[in-house]
Every structure is written in structure tokens, then in C-alpha cells.
């Protein structure tokens, strides 16, 4: 894809994203009248007292953080997926494979069973995710074989083991409320998001995002293959470790706030390749934007369709699976 076409594409998507954000701010169970939103915004800009206190709280304390969070989390998960798929040259890899989501689920389930507060659940989830990645990374070291295949295998092993532990936690949880809380967490939701949580995950995700986009050219070279990349002078081990670290950090931050969200890290990179080609320097920013837009759409549907919050994984699954079939039928599953 030529540079000028790419620039137009990115501009178009950014404009679309801005429109989506404005629409999402106006949608919700309380009121969907854009005039109400406009009145509150106007008052805030001018510095007057707000005409509608409930609308003000909802706009700035409920909808705005959720919109921001869904953009951030969507970008983080999609970019992680794109990185893994490029490094491991495997179109079926998603951010979950290395065990981050499963480890975070274990941490969150343990905190729920122990009856801890929401902030502690988030902390436990993050710690669980990081520990799972460290475990998955240590198995190749034990086997003294750090090839891609060994990393994938150890990711599968750790994910499977973590899922078994989640089974134990679900079995011992209190059926009346804890079990539902664990199941809800495993399906993903931004309903309980607060601004403190949002601010805590924004710096690491943004930092990792920027770093990965800056390194995207080198990841291109990595896509040729390990041997070829080495002969071209690239320090393969260091780059791969850094990339996996950044991707895992982004995924852990995203998952510890929203719970486990599936499919998005798998599908969006493929969609990005479909419209933008496989050049990582172009693909990575594109994937981040597309992921943010998709997550925004999903979260807005989740909180407006019915009076109860629909878990996010249900919506991502329902929308992604047919799309994946379509992608397969168009034979567009390329990685390079």
C-alpha cells in the first residue's frame, strides 16, 4: 500500500473514530438526547454550573471513562495480537496464548473468592497475568530451547494449568454471589470501571504502544524468519523478549481492568492486514486504531442494548466468528 493511500486511510479512520466517540457519549440508558449532552458540555466549557447534575455525572464519570477505556483496551489487545502473529509467524495466535488472560483470571478469581475489594481484584489480576507470563517464559529456559515452537508450547501448558486452577476456584466459591462474579469477570465487562483504574493503566499501555510502533520496522525483519533476521544483523532474542514483554504488559493491563475479552486480538490484526497490507510499520498503527474503534462499538452495545450489562466476550464472539469465516473464505490469512 502506497504512503499516500495509507495516509488517507488513517485520516479516514481517525475521523470515523471521532464521530463514534461523540455518538457513544450521547448513548446510554439514562438519556440519548444529544441536546442534553450538548447543554452539559457547553456549561462545562463556559464554566457555568451544570444544568443537570445527573447527566453531568453520567457524562464525565460513567461514559467518558468507559469510552476512553474501551479505546485503550481495544488498541492494546489488537496490537498485542498483531505483534504475536508477526513474531511467531502464526496467524492463529492471540494475546491469550501465552497465558496472560488465564493467569489474570486466576488472580481475579482468587481475590473474588477471598472477598476482596474491586481495586484488589484488579491488582491480583495484573499480578496473576505477569506471573503466568514469567512461568511460560521460564519453561523454554528449562528446556534450553528458546525457539518459537517451545514458547507456544509453554504458553499452552501454562494456559491449561491456569484454567484448571480456575475450575477449582469456581468449585469452592460461594454459589450465591461469588460464582456469578467470577463468571462475569471471565466474560469481560467495563461496567465496574472507575477513573482511578483508568488512570492506572493508561501510562503503561501508551508507553508500550508507542515503543512497539517505533520498533515495528525491526519486527518486519523478524517476520522473514529467525535465521534470516540474524544474518541481517538483528539481535533476535533481545527484540523478541522486548516485544513479548510489551505485548504481555499491554494485555495484562487491559485484562486486569476489563476481565477476559476474547477474539479481538485474533481478528483485528487480520482485518488490518486485509485493508492495509502486512507491512508492520503501517499495520501496527492501523490495528491499534481499528481495535479501539471495534472495542468502542462493542462496549457501547454492551451498555445500551438491554438494561443489564452484556459481558463483552459474548458480543466479540458473536460478531467475530462470522467475520473470521468470511476472512477464511476470502483466503486472506496471510502473515507476510
Amino acid at each position, binding site marked *: 500500500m502506497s504512503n499516500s493511500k495509507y495516509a488517507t486511510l488513517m485520516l479516514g479512520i481517525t475521523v470515523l473514530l471521532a464521530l463514534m466517540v461523540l455518538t457513544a457519549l450521547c448513548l446510554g*440508558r439514562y438519556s440519548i438526547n444529544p441536546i442534553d449532552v450538548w447543554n452539559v458540555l457547553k456549561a462545562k466549557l463556559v464554566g457555568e454550573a451544570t444544568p443537570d*447534575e445527573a447527566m453531568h455525572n453520567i457524562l464525565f464519570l460513567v461514559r467518558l471513562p468507559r469510552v476512553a477505556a474501551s479505546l485503550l483496551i481495544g488498541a492494546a489487545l489488537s496490537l498485542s495480537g498483531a505483534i504475536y502473529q508477526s513474531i511467531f509467524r502464526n496467524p492463529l495466535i492471540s494475546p491469550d496464548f501465552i497465558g496472560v488472560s488465564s493467569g489474570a483470571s486466576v488472580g481475579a478469581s482468587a481475590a473474588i473468592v477471598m472477598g476482596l*475489594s474491586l481495586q484488589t481484584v484488579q491488582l491480583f489480576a495484573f499480578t496473576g497475568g505477569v506471573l503466568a507470563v514469567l512461568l511460560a517464559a521460564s519453561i523454554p529456559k528449562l528446556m534450553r530451547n528458546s525457539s518459537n515452537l517451545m514458547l507456544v508450547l509453554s504458553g*499452552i501448558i501454562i494456559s491449561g494449568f491456569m484454567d484448571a486452577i480456575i*475450575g477449582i476456584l469456581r468449585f469452592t466459591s460461594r454459589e450465591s454471589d461469588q460464582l456469578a462474579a467470577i463468571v462475569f469477570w471471565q466474560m469481560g465487562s467495563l461496567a465496574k470501571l472507575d477513573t482511578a483504574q483508568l488512570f492506572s493503566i493508561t501510562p503503561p499501555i501508551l508507553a508500550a504502544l508507542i515503543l512497539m510502533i517505533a520498533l515495528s520496522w525491526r519486527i518486519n525483519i523478524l517476520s522473514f524468519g529467525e535465521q534470516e533476521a540474524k544474518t541481517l544483523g538483528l539481535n533476535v532474542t533481545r527484540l523478541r523478549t522486548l516485544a513479548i514483554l510489551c505485548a504481555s504488559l499491554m494485555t495484562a493491563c487491559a485484562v486486569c481492568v476489563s476481565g477476559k475479552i476474547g477474539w479481538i486480538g485474533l481478528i483485528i490484526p487480520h482485518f488490518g492486514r486485509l485493508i492495509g497490507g502486512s507491512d508492520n510499520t503501517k499495520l501496527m498503527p492501523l490495528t491499534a486504531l481499528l481495535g479501539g474503534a471495534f472495542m468502542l462499538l462493542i462496549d457501547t452495545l454492551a451498555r445500551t442494548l438491554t438494561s443489564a450489562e452484556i459481558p463483552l466476550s459474548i458480543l466479540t464472539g458473536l460478531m467475530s466468528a462470522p467475520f473470521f469465516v468470511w476472512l477464511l473464505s476470502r483466503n486472506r490469512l496471510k502473515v507476510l
Partner: protein
Amino acid sequence: MKKGKRTLALLLVMILAFGMTPAVIASAPMPISAPAPDVPVDQIAVTTGEILINGVQINAPRPSVKDGVILLPIRQIAEALDLAVTWQGNDRSVTIGDAYVLWIGKPQLSSDGGLTTREFGPAPEIIDGRTYVPISFFNFGLTGFSASVEDGKVVVNAIDGTSAASVTITDIANRSVTLPKPATKLVGTHNPTLNIAIILGGGGKYLVGFGNKNMAGNLYQYVYPELADDVPQVGMGRNVNIESCLAVGADLAILPQRFADEANVFENVGIPAAVILPNNESFETIKTSITLLGTLLGEDNRAKEINAYFDGKINAAKEIAGKADAQVKAIYLGSSSQLSVANGAMLQSLMLETAGAVNVAKDVAGSGGFIDVSVEEIIGWNPEIIYIPAYASYTVEDILSDAAWSSIQAVKDKKVFIFPSALEPWDYPTPSTSMGLMWLISNLYPELYSMDQVLDDANEYYELVYGQRFTVEQLGLR
């Protein structure tokens, strides 16, 4: 190099299979029906192999235990009961006495020439050339007999159907439950259901097996101190350890309607089961539960006394609430999250409305517990008072300090209250709801009813049921 790759590929396949299995099992939905009891044949409590008919041991083949069902040889037992037994080879049926016919493979007993058919547990089968029937055949198939396991022996007794001692009810699941004499040893795993037994017993005197002890609450420390050390936990929720129930000699299992399918698990080993707590809760269903279990325990008078007190209190509450001039907008939040509410189907909503308040979340769709809603809906409803359960996993502070809730009237007036009591939940489906109702009225309309009067009501109730009185601190009243 090729050999290494093949080994690695094989390893990959094995690990994939290994890795997938726990994931599949862990992500499978929790089973909604009772799992088959997993008791090894030689450990179920039919240890001695003796069969006693009306107290006399008979010469008969050993009882057989298969898949948690006790099977007994029909011929020897029927002949000991003076019933002739004839085998019909052409349709594989057995004629017992003059009127009964049963078939191999059919769990039905036909009597009076096919006029009546009664169903009982699993079907009869042939073992070693003999016809075996399940133990529930004598409890639910034949009339006038009862069969159970005592001290490792199978005991079958003829009971006089009109004997003064036998008690019978039709439980919530429309099952007819007949006991030869009132039950004295109850087991259960659902705590609100067990609470009914404790109320009727004025303590734990009828219970020999309990559910999750961690959920027992403070009240039991005072009225049921033996629970902590002397009473075994025979299961938790849906998971029942049937062997423990047999070991403690249970003669009745009590269940809520949502666990009604577990009744078979008990009946297959000769323990009668009664479903006494319905899913939809109201003041009427509380009285029904007390009446049903009261009959099974032979405590009819006490059940009537408690229900009469309960009725009196509900009527008094309605009268007082009728004097309120304005209806307060209230909401009752759920236990696991402040973003869940009690809708019109829940007991908590009935209590709010009876106390003269309006439940702003009444019309939220759904049933079977607290319903999750969006925070925007709660802000839109703008309740004047918020109640949270005593067993909530969040605090009043969490709500008052949440900036998104700050526009709600109840938060501005700091009218967020924990529903009593510290001793036991007054919003569980038991007669304690009468005290919860009085507390609600006093909280909503202090000028109509004072907290002192609520304290008097509480002590009146606890005196009646347990013979004990409690202080304001113990009750956690405000």
C-alpha cells in the same frame, strides 16, 4: 534432525491434548442436575447384608448396591410379608399378592388390575437369576410399608397407614411424602431451608447434618452452639455426600425447590426427601414452609403458633404503614455488587412495598435473584433511600464515596442503610422477615414506629422461637 522433529511434533500433539482438557473441563458450565453419588459399593452403609422384616432377620440373598441405589431381592421379602410371588416368563413380570404387578425394566407398580399405577425409583432388574427391586419400591410403590437402612442392615416394616404416628404432606414439588413417624434426624445443605428446621426446633435439636457452616451466621452461636463441633457438614449447595447422610442416620432430607432434582439421590438409599422451600418467595410461602416441615416433625402446634405470630405482625405492619402520608422511593441493592437490584419478584421488594415504600426497580425484567443493571438506570431512578444487605460484599462507604452516584437523592441525604440484622439476615425467607418489616417502617417513617418498638418486637420473636433475648448491639440495630 528429522527424528528430532518427529518427536517434537508428537510431543506437541500430546501437550495440546493435555492442555485442552483442563480448559474444556474448567470452562464447562456447572452441572445443573445432581451428580450420581460416587460411593464405592462396599462402603455404602449396607454393610452387614442382613434384611430385617418387621424386626425379624430373614434368609435372603445379600442386598445389592449399584450406582448409589440399594436393590433388594423381592421374592424372599414378599414371602416374609405373607405375599405370594409368581414369575411370568412371557412378559417378564412378577405378580405379588393378589393385586400387584411389576415388570423388569419398568419403574412402575400396577395394582387393582391396572387401575392404579405408582411410580418408584429405578426399574427392577434381574441379578443372578433373581428379581431385585430398589429400596424405594417399599416406600413409594407398595403402600403400607417403609424401608430404610439402620446400623448397616436393611429394615422393612409394615406400617399401619392409619396409625396415629405416620405423617404425610404434599411438598412444594407436588410429591407425596409419607413418614411412618415424625422425623427426628434432618439433613440438608441449603442454609435458608435448614433455618426453618432450626426455628421449629427452637435450636438444632432436629438436625444431624448441616450445609456450609461458614454461612451459618451469628445467631447460631447463641441458639445452636453444638453446630460448630458436633454436627458434620454433609454437603455444600448441590454437592451432597450421601455416605455422610447415611452415617448420621438421617430420616429426612429437606430441600429448596431449586435443588428438587436431588430428591432422587436421597431416596435411592432409603432417606425420604421433602422439598419445602419454593423459588418464588412471599410471606405466604414462608408460612407454607413452616407448616409443611411442622407436620413432618410432628410440631404442628408450634408451627401454627409461629405462623399466627407472623400473620399478626404482617397485618400490624400493613396497618401502621397505611398511615404514612407520602410513599418514599426506595431501592434494595444486591449482595455481590452495588449495580444489582431486587426487582418485583423478590421478597425484599415485597417487604419494601408492604412497608409503604415504592421500589423504583420493581419493573426490571428477570427472576431468580438480584438483577444486574446499568449505573445509568440507578441514577435515572433517583431513589430517596438505598438499602444494602447485611451480607453485601461492599460497604455503605463505597456507595457514598462513588462520584458517579453523587447526584442521587439518597446519597446526598446520606440515606444509605444496611438491612438488619447482625445476628441473622432479616430478609431471608423465614419468619424473621416480620422484624425486618417493622425495622423498615421505623426507618422509612420514624414518626410512626420507633426503634425501641422494633427492639421489643425482635425480643418478642426470639423469646417465642428460641427462648432468648438479645441486646441492641447483638442485633446490630440502629
